[in-house]
């Protein structure tokens, strides 16, 4: 079938949110890992920050990224009328 302008817009928005969340993922994984030694100079909740992020902080952010993505795209589906109705 031919996709409408609305459909293309939906996909664009999906790509944008994917890119943003991927950026955050990259930041708390690789940038954080690269500077772990430097971050350890900071103390957070009694932990050295570099250790805290790798052991707990980044993990919690991963959970949040996925949770937000599911919530946001679910809303987007309805807005652009590509949702699955009752099943969703």
């Amino acid at each position, binding site marked *: *079938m031919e*996709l409408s302008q609305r*459909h293309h817009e*939906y*996909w664009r928005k*999906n790509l944008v949110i*994917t890119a943003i*969340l*991927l950026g955050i*993922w990259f930041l708390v*994984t*690789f940038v954080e*890992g*690269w500077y*772990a*030694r430097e971050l*350890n100079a900071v103390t*957070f*909740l*009694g*932990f*050295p920050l*570099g*250790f*805290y992020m*790798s*052991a*707990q902080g*980044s*993990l*919690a952010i*991963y*959970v949040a*990224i*996925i*949770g937000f*993505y*599911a919530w946001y*795209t*679910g809303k987007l*589906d309805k807005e652009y*009328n*590509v*949702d*699955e*109705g*009752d*099943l*969703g």
Partner: protein
Amino acid sequence: MSSFSHSAFNSQLKKYYSFYTGGFLLFLVTLAIAEQMGMSRQWIGYSFLFATIALYAGIGIMSRTAEVSEYYVAGRRVPAFFNGMATGADWMSAASFIGMAGTLFLAGFDGLAFVMGWTGGYCLVALFLAPYLRKFGQFTIPDFLGARYGGNIIRTIGIIAAITCSFVYVVAQIYGVGLITSRFTGLEFGIGVFVGLGGILVCSMLGGMKAVTWTQVAQYIILIIAYLTPVVWLGMKHTGIPVPQFAYGITLQKVGELEKKINSDPKELEVRKIFKDRADSANAALKDPAKAYADGQAAAAKRVADLKAANAPADQVTAAEKALAAYPKDEAAAKAQWNKDKGLAARAAPVRSHADPYPGKDEAARFTAKLNFLGIVFCMMFGTAALPHILMRYYTTPSVQQARVSVFWSLFFIFLLYFTAPCLAVLAKYDMFTNLVGSQFATLPAWAAAWAKVDPTLLNITDFNKDGIVQWAEVVIGGDLIVLATPEIAGLPYVVSGLVAAGGLAAALSTADGLLLTIANALSHDLYYKMIDPSASTAKRVTISKSLLIVVAITAAYVTSLKPGDILFLVGAAFSLAASAFFPPLVLGVFWKRANKWGAIIGMIAGLSVCVYYMMRTYPFFTNMGVPKMDLWFGLNPISAGVFGLPIGLLTIVVVSLLTKAPDKETQELVEHVRYPHLRGDNVVSEAT
């Protein structure tokens, strides 16, 4: 299926599993009371082993099916929450449950590469794969490759890659099953393997994905209770609150202070000097072994003669005679001893700081350690997002939205264990630094005395400087000890140790279930039905799959019984291979319409080849067999071969696709079809029933 109500099903499931959890807790309490009344440890072990395996088999029997859609994808009605739990159990293997905390205990910060890699990978699953695979809605991962890129070549490569990484992984699981059953019940390793395998087969054979799913949910509940219970207790002991995950920062600081104390303690330095001297003299001896052997023997004989001549006390003479008798029989034996002593150099090194990332003797060594950390994170993440037994789970939800939500629940349930493991490592270290170090050899803590006697590979304490007091340098710990001994360290009754064993068993069995099913499905569905006999009846397809399960399981058990080398490397290799082979074609298949058949075929082969090539040329197992050895690229270890394989695979797909003609309109419509959860007026039907 119109009369089927998803919400009613969901609430029914919640009721069942609440009853089940209550029942399991009641079972625990009953056993705890029985222990107080004198039930033996062996019988507690048996009770856990047989009760849980009977339970899993029971769920298998209740969920038996011969229907294709039930068998392959559990009827596509697994609610997000429960699919999350099942994925959690599917995901967390014996290595996660038993090995992870130990790795963190031994490696400190650098072990966190696995914690990050094995959780962050789910971001990639959520953003790039799960919703689109669910919309595509077939049965296996090669299905997607076959439909998107067309033809049997790509499907065949997919089958080979899926079977290779799943098989490597399943061997590690069956090994874990054998280890746990033999340790906690005293059954022989081989028998342990077959008891466990029996449980796996009854379940997956009778009900396929449907039975495996509901069993995995049950297994998750057991494994998380088993992991958290002892940690909560140990946390209460050292931090005073029942959720030590949030409060162990203070404990970590104390560990840091104790590390400093250990590194400057004169007694510790004395022990480390003993190791250094031994290693040095071994190195010197190895330069001219023949002479050193003769000299050493002559010196020992001379000492006996001298003592006798000087009329020394009898006990000194006996000791010298003993030393002479214990002297290696020949040069080869002496050489073996010296090579062992050479390794003591490692124990002469000061304690590494637990929280300190990337230790190394200079800036260059620290940089290489950093690259290797990030390399492992990279491979574990992309491997997670490419392992077929995990991706397959997202075919089983009722809808695309449920698939997205179920990735969230998956990671949430995995997170519960993975953010506890680093905490457990720190608590265990603190406990050992305070209660074990400095204690008298005559009055070791009860758990240490017991474990050192049971298994010296897990715990070995020897009084090297003969002062009767334990120095940290005198303790050797095997990683698996941490989880296995935590209940005793925390001072809990034996029933909790049985619970931990049951948890480890649940972790190993659930992962093995998912993997075996993946392999059998690749053979029966992708190879037999899609390529050899497309007219096969549904009954025949399911029967073939069930028979293949037995064949694959027995083959895997046989390979396990050969005890192939380094399990951790095998697991790492499976991730690197999966990342290099599957990630590029799957993701480009959804996000880039222009990706075509030849791009995918050559890209998959290129990614896999680079990955295999790097491992073959750098991993000692292969280079010792005669493969010419080469230098590491950027100092990256063979486990991280995916760092090279994945980008090359990706690049090759792009270049080759652009050089060949664009995919046809039908394929482009399929891509559009998977991008939208529900396209009104869409005439592409990809979902199999």
